[in-house]
């Protein structure tokens, strides 16, 4: 009965989404505040219904109710509870339900948010979000129903792909989805603005916290996915330019551009048309990513639903929303009043450069991802576009952008003083250059790109904090006064500083991978091998072990540094009997920000054991940097200006610490 109630809740949510779509839209057209006010409660109700449905499915997984086809196909009674729960979204139907849950969540949050969104904009936004929800609910119910029943119910399920049985999976897709789907709300805002024909600074401020929220989660989601691939797939790589990874990177790049262009729009009422287009394209790329992954056009680990019918349905949704929104854009955009042309050397000029580079970089990644598909469709030739292509196109576009980042932070609006800015950044640039030369000297003969990359990262971090220093301290000011001033800087300034410093950390981490070492060795018990980075590993034992639903052979190694024992790592070859599937579990030991990474291979003909040993210096900075970026976005979201206009104004800004946004 519970299960059927969960199923019915989805059908009910579909009916109610129709109300969420039609009534507020009508209210906005007729300027009727009562009809517009329907959007709030209905969007909350839709969210509650979908949440109930999701809860019911999760419960069915927890109690192993194999009368639900989806549970039967993707679970097993012997699985640990945590993987029963994560299994809910470890398959196509469940993950689409999660997708809709997040869609409804964002709709409901706009419905209840108490900030300065004008009522018409809010009503239209909720209506557009309702339309997206309708499309995906139809898709779910008609082609991928998670509540399909199975009679008679089997007594055992069919387990879950063991590669997906990992804690990384528990966190990575939901985060990624919140990011992906979060951009649906910026899309809805853009469509609402086009429907109403009113696009101004108020719009930019209303949409900004949502863009930041979506970007924050997408950043964490991509980062988690990368770390998951790093330790689970056992190759020691952290980014493969896999088409599925690119599908999540593309909306991230455009989302980053969107964050920066909304600042210009909010402060200067410029870049309106471009910002709306960005909002549409960002979500379009999210939809395209879903289509590519779900349709099986790109076959990979993520394509757990290789089903052309579903692909076709998503393609229809894709064409409808992307085509429809671009058509509306083409119709309405010429009516918008254009902002003025502004000086190239100015804060807005720097932000335009940011958008230019990011959009171009996004286009190159898109070309690299789609070109093989297009070529095969046209000529039949099969090619692979791999990391070398992206390294040769994406990275050269990123470097000038990163060099410009601190300039954008310091330049003034309208007309900037380039010489003055260069002077302010001179210290950061000099220190970074010094660090580069120093490291180059120490690692003479090693890769040249690495010290340069580290220098760039140092420059980014110093440049980011340069803003804090120059805004709060000048010669003669005491440190305590400066500290108080720094604390008083607006949250959005601190958010920018953190996010840009995070980019710097990630750049250092990526640059340092050039120093990582890989050793492929054959070892017998008691053998000692050089790992690199001053570490050595001794193979102590290879022993079988039985896990909850797998058996494994565990190789245990003791690590030495300078002859001293510093710890151990275990890497295992696992075998999951139910799926008859072997996996390799890498062993990772962290030393500071660096890691020793061990992966066990096959037994060799002479009885020794194949081993891959890696030393990965500063590798953790890659992910640490992304976390710092996300923290920056979070700080920025709490800026006081996003609370302005809420019905009750909590407090006035303190007069001494003059908060002001700056991106």
């Amino acid at each position, binding site marked *: 009965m519970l299960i059927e109630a969960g199923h019915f809740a989805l059908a009910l949510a579909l009916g109610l989404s129709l109300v969420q779509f039609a009534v507020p839209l009508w209210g906005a057209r007729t300027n009727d505040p009562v009809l517009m006010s329907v959007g709030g409660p209905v969007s909350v109700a839709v969210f509650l219904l979908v949440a109930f449905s999701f809860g019911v499915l999760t419960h069915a997984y927890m109690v192993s109710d194999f009368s639900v086809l989806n549970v039967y196909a993707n679970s097993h009674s012997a699985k640990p509870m945590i993987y029963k729960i994560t299994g809910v979204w470890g398959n196509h139907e469940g993950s689409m339900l999660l997708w809709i849950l997040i869609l409804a969540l964002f709709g409901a949050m706009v419905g209840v948010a108490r900030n300065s969104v004008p009522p018409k904009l809010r009503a239209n936004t909720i209506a557009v979000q309702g339309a997206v929800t309708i499309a995906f609910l139809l898709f779910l119910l008609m082609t991928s129903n998670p509540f399909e029943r199975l009679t008679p119910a089997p007594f055992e399920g069919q387990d879950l792909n063991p590669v997906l049985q990992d804690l990384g999976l528990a966190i990575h897709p939901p985060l990624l989805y919140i990011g992906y789907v979060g951009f649906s709300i910026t899309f809805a805002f853009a469509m609402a603005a086009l429907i109403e024909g009113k696009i101004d600074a108020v719009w930019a401020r209303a949409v900004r916290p949502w863009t930041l929220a979506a970007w924050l989660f997408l950043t964490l989601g991509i980062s988690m996915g990368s770390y998951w691939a790093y330790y689970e797939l056992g190759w020691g790589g952290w980014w493969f330019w896999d088409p599925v990874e690119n599908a999540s990177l593309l909306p991230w790049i455009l989302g980053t551009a969107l964050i920066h262009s909304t600042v210009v729009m909010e402060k200067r009422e410029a870049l309106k048309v471009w910002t709306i287009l960005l909002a549409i394209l960002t979500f379009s790329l999210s939809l395209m990513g879903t289509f590519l992954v779900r349709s099986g056009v790109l076959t990979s680990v993520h394509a757990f639903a290789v089903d052309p019918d579903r692909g076709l349905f998503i393609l229809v949704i894709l064409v409808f929303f992307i085509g429809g929104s671009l058509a509306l854009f083409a119709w309405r955009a010429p009516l918008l009043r254009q902002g003025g042309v502004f000086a190239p050397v100015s804060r807005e000029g720097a932000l335009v450069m940011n958008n*230019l580079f990011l959009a171009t970089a996004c286009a190159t990644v898109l070309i690299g991802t789609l070109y093989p598909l297009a070529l095969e469709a046209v000529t039949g030739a*099969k090619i692979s576009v791999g990391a070398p*292509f992206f390294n040769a196109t994406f990275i050269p576009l990123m470097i000038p952008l990163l060099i410009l980042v601190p300039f954008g932070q310091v330049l003034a609006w309208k007309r900037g003083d380039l010489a003055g800015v260069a002077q302010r950044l001179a210290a950061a640039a000099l220190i970074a250059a010094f660090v580069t030369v120093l490291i180059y000297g120490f690692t003479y003969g090693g890769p040249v790109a690495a010290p340069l990359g580290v220098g760039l990262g140092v420059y980014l971090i110093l440049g980011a904090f340069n803003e804090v220093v120059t805004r709060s301290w000048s010669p003669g000011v005491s440190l305590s006064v400066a500290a108080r001033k720094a604390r008083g800087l607006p949250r959005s300034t601190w958010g920018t500083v953190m996010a840009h410093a995070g980019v710097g950390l990630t750049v250092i981490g990526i640059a340092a991978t050039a120093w990582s070492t890989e050793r492929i060795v054959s070892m017998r018990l008691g053998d000692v091998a050089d790992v690199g980075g001053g570490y050595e590993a001794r193979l102590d034992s290879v022993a079988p072990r039985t896990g909850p639903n797998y058996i494994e052979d565990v190789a245990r190694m003791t690590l030495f540094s300078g002859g001293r024992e510093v710890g151990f790592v275990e890497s295992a070859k696992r075998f999951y009997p139910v799926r008859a599937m072997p*996996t390799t579990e890498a062993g990772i030991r962290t030393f500071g920000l660096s890691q020793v990474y061990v992966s066990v291979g096959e037994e060799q003909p002479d009885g020794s054991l194949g081993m891959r040993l890696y030393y990965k210096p500063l590798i953790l900075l890659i992910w640490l940097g992304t976390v710092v970026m996300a923290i920056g976005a979070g700080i920025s979201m709490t800026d006081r200006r996003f609370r302005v206009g809420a019905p009750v104004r909590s407090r006035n800004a303190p007069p001494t610490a003059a908060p002001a946004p700056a991106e």
Partner: protein
Amino acid sequence: MTRKQRRLVMIGGAGAVLAVALGLVLVAMRDTIVFFRAPSEIAAQGVDPGVRFRLGGLVEDGSIRHAGDQVVLFRVTDGGATVDVRYRGHLPDLFREGQGVVTEGALDGAGLFVADTVLARHDENYMPREVADALKQQGLWQHGGDAPPTQ
């Protein structure tokens, strides 16, 4: 600066960045893209030694030999022809005889394919799309996604 000059500077800057990006893409397209080939295509058309490409097909039954020092020799077949492959390093977990595989590398002078990458599959039922197509062309692909019977 006049309004017109400003506009020109902005458009010129954008054009320059786009031109650079286009140039990078074109150069990268020429240098970094590798083609996918099946063994029978290599037999029919021939590939110059040293040209990187991806070789896909099935690992021929009984062809895997471990030569020590982590070197593995095996043959890749698509039913029409076979290619000898040499690879040093760890094999993916699901590398098995009779299963689909994609390797990347180049032929040496003697017709041996020296691979530096053997692509992993993550799922028992996953067959690299290119391999599936190649096998279909050779009539080896059975309905249902299973590897062809080889005994």
